[in-house]
């Protein structure tokens, strides 16, 4: 296990290097000029040339990359061209909001998704199962943007149960978490339903039933525990992607997370901010995956990492 952890952590550096190299190249060839975005609508060529020189944008790409890498290795992601603030500080300031939203969305998605899936596997073809399946498909099919706006319209503007946007207090968390979690609910329901169906047909369930265990214990403690393994994988992947920012949800609900930060940075061609975010978020994603793998081993004794 220790060795597995060591190998995975050792692989982290080349992974992040690759991510960074690709991000750097993509931004380099992308049209649009960060300095043009900095100076706004009215500028003269002399100012633009001066700023380009000050920001070292005229250096050869290899030197820019080298310069960036050596700073990043020291944990310095540089300063934003636009705001002049340190990028790492900006990201750390926004990450708790993203974490809060991701956790809430995941909690909602896993509770509802797994419940729907387990019920569906236990009573396949029943009316609630069919309704839930339909709802799950709809949840996957509707665009996040649309779902978010409808939720705002119904629960904030008309019913006034929750604020339409913002991040102050618990109530503001509900609508964005529902919006973000919706897609995962559907997916989790499908995965847990299939896994549960398989498990319920296995020998040890028949044994448990034969031993006279109450049905609830059979399904929930024997069945669910074994069906959870594939669910865990889905949870890990989705949580990883939530943590890397959910641009649409954050934009609709004015949520101050990292997704909006990245979107803003791209729009303004704020190169160091985009690169810093990509690096930071890749690190988060890789770490979440690593933790998922470790949990997997914990949950299933048959899985041995060596």
């Amino acid at each position, binding site marked *: 296990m220790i060795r597995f952890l060591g190998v995975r952590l050792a692989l982290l550096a080349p992974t992040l290097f690759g991510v960074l190299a690709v991000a750097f190249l993509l931004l380099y060839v992308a049209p649009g000029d960060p300095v043009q975005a900095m100076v706004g609508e009215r*500028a003269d060529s002399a*100012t633009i040339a001066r700023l380009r020189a000050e920001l070292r944008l005229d250096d050869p790409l290899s030197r820019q990359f080298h310069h960036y890498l050596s700073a990043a290795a020291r944990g310095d992601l540089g300063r934003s061209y636009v705001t002049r603030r340190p990028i790492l500080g900006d990201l750390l300031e926004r990450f708790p909001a993203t974490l809060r939203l991701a956790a809430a969305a995941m909690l909602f998605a896993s509770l509802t998704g797994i419940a729907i899936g387990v019920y569906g596997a236990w009573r396949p073809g029943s009316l609630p199962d069919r309704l839930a399946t339909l709802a799950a498909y709809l949840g996957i099919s509707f665009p996040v943007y649309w779902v978010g706006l409808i939720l705002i319209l119904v629960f904030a503007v008309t019913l006034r149960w929750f604020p339409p946007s913002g991040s102050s207090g618990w109530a503001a968390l509900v609508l964005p978490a529902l919006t973000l979690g919706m897609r995962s609910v559907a997916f989790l329901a499908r995965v847990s339903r299939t896994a549960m169906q398989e498990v319920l047909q296995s020998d040890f369930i028949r044994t448990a039933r034969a031993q006279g265990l109450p049905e609830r214990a059979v399904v929930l403690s024997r069945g669910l525990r074994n069906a959870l393994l594939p669910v865990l994988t889905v949870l890990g992947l989705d949580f990883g992607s939530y943590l890397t920012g959910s641009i649409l949800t954050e934009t609709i609900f004015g949520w101050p997370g990292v997704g909006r930060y990245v979107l803003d940075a791209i729009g303004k061609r704020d190169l160091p901010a985009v690169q810093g975010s990509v690096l930071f978020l890749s690190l988060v994603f890789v770490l979440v995956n690593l933790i998922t793998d470790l949990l997997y081993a914990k949950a299933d004794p048959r899985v041995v990492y060596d």
Partner: protein
Amino acid sequence: MPPRPLLLLAALWCGAACTSAPGPDTLTYYYYSEPRSLDPALSTDVPTGEVVAMLYDNLTQFDVEGRLGPGLATRWETDPSGRVYTFHLRTDARFHDGRPVTARDVRASYLRALAPGTQSGRAWPLDPILHARSYAAGDTSAVPAIAVPDDSTVVITLEQPLNVFPKLLAMPVAAIVPAGADARFGDHPVGSGPWRFVSWLHDHALVLARNPDYWGPVPLADTLRIRILPEALTQAAEYESGRLSVVEIPFGETRLWERRRPAELQRRPALRVFYIAINTTRGPLRDVRVRRALNHAVDIPTILARLMGGRGTLSAGALPPSLPGFDSSRTRYAYDPARALALLAEAGFPRGFTLRLWRSQRPEYARVAQAVQQDLAAVGVRVEIVERDAASARAAARKGETDLFITDWYGDYPDPENFNFPLFHSRNRGPGGNLAFLADSALDRLIERARRTMDPREKEALDREIDRRVFELAPWIFCWFPEDLWAVQPDVKGWRIPAIFNGQRWNTVQRTR
């Protein structure tokens, strides 16, 4: 006492975001994006410019109607050459930390905005000052042209006479900060304006509090909360829930709001012109007859009425109706496809040609682009629409790579100079604002004269002449001057749409119950 992990958890979940609901003495405004900084030297964008006007003072400033009035300077005069401006400062102005505002702070603020290390990129309003440019380039280490004979007098010498200079000093970048402001200033601003800084949770909200010691009108409300809300539909929802004091109505929603909340709506002609730049250096577009043909070929009145909710005034020139120099007697290029065909034939293009029309991703631009494409096809001009994000589209237009480019121009200050000079002087081709790449020496001379003269009547006559010449040269497909439309909560009193973006300082706004 709850166990510690619970406290920690609560802190993590709630964080700094937990704030109480806005009380009756709180006004709530919003920006569509984060201000770049609260440091005036970095104000490139509208949100920064607006918040700078609340936190700071300038020597001169605009009121809500866009009139230039005294700020920290109670009066100013120009010498006969038009190059030397003397500003007399008020003595009762104090920064939020209690220090008095002196002439030395004024000089320090301007030098700071110009200094190379600041990386402002937006100090052009100060460029007319003698040697300011070489100071910004790092070639000289002082600007003796900003003289401070005593604590309450500033004497500024310009490179050339420039009549709009007092208006340039009302721009956000020329706001006065305490001498010695450092790089951290952008997050911990200290100004002398009607509002003081309280907190800024990035991408979420800015909180300002009334400055009870303000020398001008002290704000009527205690608190001004400015939220960051990028999405127009969310802004509308927040307004409808009573959580925003005012909201701007998107063009596409005009009819809906006119039907549902007519009593809350407020209008004002914007200091803005919507246009399609014709690159006058590319292919057939070099011929003025072709450019006029394009103007005759597009049915602008229908586009304005159908696609923009009729919110605007058709334009026959570049100067908005609110500015001196606007000529209401000029008739626009009429929608007349037959005339367009004749002009194209006369110019040697009886069978038309192909053009590329660039636009950014704003939804209203998409519909306009399609309408233009259709209208031009009817006279044989085949249009290929190129859609890019705002930064890429603008970069291409500035490099001269676009044939046609749909865009608009927001006034920085209410003066014809702010339209004529950046948009049409040959010195400003490309990044300077002249996206038509127009280079007409007669026009250049007129524009230069209009900038120099100290006679307002002559200036107005020149500006009218410039606008006429621009209209004849047809460097744009002339479209319209948009109209601002905002909704204001019934309990919010004293708020007016400002004529210029930094003209609304929220100190005369209040909520009544």
